[in-house]
């Protein structure tokens, strides 16, 4: 492989990784793996927002109380920022005051695990898109027309 192609591939992989962080699955779609990208996009979105639906936006992401989980959740990019933005709209109450927006054990733990695991899965996706070669035109043709048969 010549150095120009290698540089182009590295730039494409870096852009794909960045896109994967911003919107899970977008990196694979950008790199030419459309079907994989759509699967990742759907599964990570459903897992993350499923967790938010369980715990509510106020409890699910807690940057100060659950720092390690917060770092995992931030791996989902736009999803996490959307939840943080929604949570900031709800006024804070003292810990001892009851709030209809706050989840209590074990619901808060389940919500945090769902969203945190979604983030960790996206980290796996980012690493995958960094090391995944772009689909070659030959492979794409073989998928469309099926395997070639040699003439006898």
């Amino acid at each position, binding site marked *: 492989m010549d150095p120009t192609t290698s540089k182009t591939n590295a730039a494409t992989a870096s852009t794909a990784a960045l896109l994967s962080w911003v919107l899970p699955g977008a990196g694979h779609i950008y790199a030419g793996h459309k079907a994989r990208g759509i*699967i990742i996009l759907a599964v990570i979105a459903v897992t993350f927002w499923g967790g938010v639906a*369980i715990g509510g936006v106020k409890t699910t992401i807690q940057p100060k109380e659950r720092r390690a989980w917060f770092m995992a959740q931030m791996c989902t990019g736009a999803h996490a920022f959307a939840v943080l933005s929604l949570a900031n709209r709800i006024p804070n109450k003292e810990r001892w005051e009851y709030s209809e*927006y706050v989840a209590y054990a074990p619901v*808060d733990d389940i919500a945090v695990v769902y969203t945190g695991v979604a983030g960790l*899965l996206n980290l796996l996706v980012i690493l995958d898109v960094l090391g995944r070669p772009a689909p070659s035109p030959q492979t794409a043709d073989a998928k469309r027309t099926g395997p070639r048969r040699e003439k006898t």
Partner: protein
Amino acid sequence: MTDWLSTIFLHPLEIGGWQCGVLLWPLCLAVSIIYKTTKCGTVREIPLASLILWVTIVVGMYAVGAALLIIYRIAT
């Protein structure tokens, strides 16, 4: 639409007891699908491979949970 979204994402669910154990299933399904999406050579292999991995994880987790419960009961 806004009311529906507010109910879904602003107010937490009330979950407890056996429901916590059932919530393991969709999480394990997500893990198995994403893992197999990154590992499988072709997209066609993903559904079956994910299903097998999902069943393996769920059965394994319940087995570990049951074993820990038995140890806890014996110890206390």
